[in-house]
């Protein structure tokens, strides 16, 4: 990746983090940890890889994304607002009664959301259906899927994994946001999922493992996955929960966290001061 693009993506990821902290901070509580850990993945997808049209969110031949860890919605909303799917002012309506931006992704409320998620594991099967649909139609597009590490404890993830391999869904590219934490503690303590790459390999997927906060690695991994046509791809991303939100970074408590708008502003200043 040329230096200019890398700088652009890194800068964009920072902007998305700022928007996300501001969005959740304005409300005063939210799933900041799991939102911040997927920002770099979302940034590479929406600003480099995915073919989407904010003016035509349902465009038939778009690339699709299912964020199966639906509580990462706030980060995705920041991206979609920045892309122009809806006004940025909406971000301050997060979880207000009647909002179009609920905690968990809702395809019927938010322009640009490709599938409704929230009950963990379910988005994975829906993504298989979407990828299969595009394959049956002959659309040369990708379906992307983001799952969590805690979410990987759901049996449905592995039912879907079997399905994707069996139906040779080479157009499906998934990411595991492996931030090593879940609500009740560290993933390794609550219900270990390792060796996660071996598991996905065993299910017949093309597997890569990368630094999920390195835009160059993310971009390269997606490019690699796009070359794989007969198998779905899993990109296991080592990430840090709450990445870029100083009060929550690397902390189990950041899964759902209450913090004041003042704290949000301080965290944003800190983030923007970073080189």
């Amino acid at each position, binding site marked *: 990746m040329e230096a200019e693009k890398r700088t652009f993506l890194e800068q964009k990821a920072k902007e998305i983090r700022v928007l996300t902290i501001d969005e959740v901070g304005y409300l005063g509580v939210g799933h900041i940890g799991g939102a911040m850990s997927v920002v770099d993945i979302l940034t590479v997808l929406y600003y480099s890889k995915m073919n989407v049209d904010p003016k035509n969110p349902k465009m038939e031949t778009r690339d699709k994304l*299912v964020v199966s860890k639906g509580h990462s919605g706030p980060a995705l909303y920041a991206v979609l607002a920045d892309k122009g799917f809806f006004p940025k002012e909406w971000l301050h309506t997060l979880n207000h009664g009647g909002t179009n931006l609920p905690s968990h992704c809702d*395809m*019927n409320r938010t322009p640009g959301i*490709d*599938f*409704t998620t*929230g*009950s963990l*594991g*379910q988005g*994975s*099967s*829906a*993504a*298989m*259906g*979407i*990828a*299969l*649909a*595009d394959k*049956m*139609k002959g659309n040369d597009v990708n379906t992307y899927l983001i799952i969590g590490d805690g979410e990987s404890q759901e*049996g*449905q993830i592995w*039912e*879907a994994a*079997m*399905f994707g391999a*069996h*139906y040779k869904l080479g157009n499906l590219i998934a990411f595991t946001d492996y931030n090593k934490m879940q609500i009740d503690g560290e993933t390794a303590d609550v219900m270990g999922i390792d060796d996660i790459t071996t598991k996905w390999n065993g299910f017949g997927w093309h597997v890569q493992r990368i630094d999920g906060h390195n835009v160059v690695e993310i971009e390269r991994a997606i490019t690699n996955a796009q070359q794989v046509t007969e198998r779905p791809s899993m990109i296991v991303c080592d990430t840090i929960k709450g990445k870029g939100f100083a009060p929550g970074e690397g902390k189990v408590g950041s899964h759902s966290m209450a913090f004041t708008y003042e704290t949000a502003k301080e965290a944003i200043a800190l983030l923007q001061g970073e080189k």
Partner: protein
Amino acid sequence: MKKLDTYADMRAVYADTLIEIAKDDDKVVVMDADLMAANGTKGFKDAYPDRMINAGVAEANMVGVAAGLASQGFIPFASTFGCFAARRAYDQFFLSANYAKQNVKLVGSDPGVTAQFNGGTHMPFCDITLMRVIPNLVVLDPCDTVSLHKLTKAIYEYKGPVYMRLHRKGATTIYKDDQEFEIGKGVVIKDGTDVTLIANGLVMVTEAIKAEKALAAEGISAAVIDMHTIKPLDEALVAEYAKKTGAIVTCENGQKIGGLGGAVSEYLSENMPTLMKRVAVDDVFGEVGTQDYLQERFGLTSEKIVEAAKSLVKK
């Protein structure tokens, strides 16, 4: 399709109807979870191999995949035994299909006692009750070859999620070929003045028709209604016959709590309190046995309907 009254099994009517629909619409896909042969959908696979998606023994994933396909304009008809459709994949059907407003048709076979030798683990008494509480869901239990054929077409035309029971083995033909069926509109099979038998599904519509004849022999005039759609309930028809006969007996092959009888009594108790009895499975689990044994065991017989009807008419 063959003539409807020549079918030996309801599942073949279901499969042939899907084949007929799929001929003119390449968005129709059929899914099953390792029960293609049992549910008759193998017939669809033979006709349209590229549009038959077997999900293996993974019902939750099947329903989720169906929702994903539906989000891209496909119309999936996903079938499995009713116990798995209603319980194993409930959250997936509730959220990925219904909450997400996806056009998924979920078909649960072997309703109630027709699960026979598969026994308690496989005997869906609860499916109608569970499905009824999903907002806006259409819930159906057709009773014969003609209604199954026409209602399968109707749910294809209807845009939105549907749960339909499929009586898979054996068949009966009650209606003439030209009988019309509409989702949410019950059918008066026999008019009457003393009591109304509101039934659905093959097992209990059959028993209700028998009961009507037995009651007639004793000088009691019973109306028989096929309430093939449990939700949305045909409230106007219930009201009309509650008023006309003043007594209602519901007859269903499933759990007494929250099923057809529940739906009818919820409506009547709030709007026009009417004497009622519910002939249904009385809050117990299923077990193995022949269908005859199980109908006796759980009280799903014409004798029980007659007894219930007479207890109301006497008053």
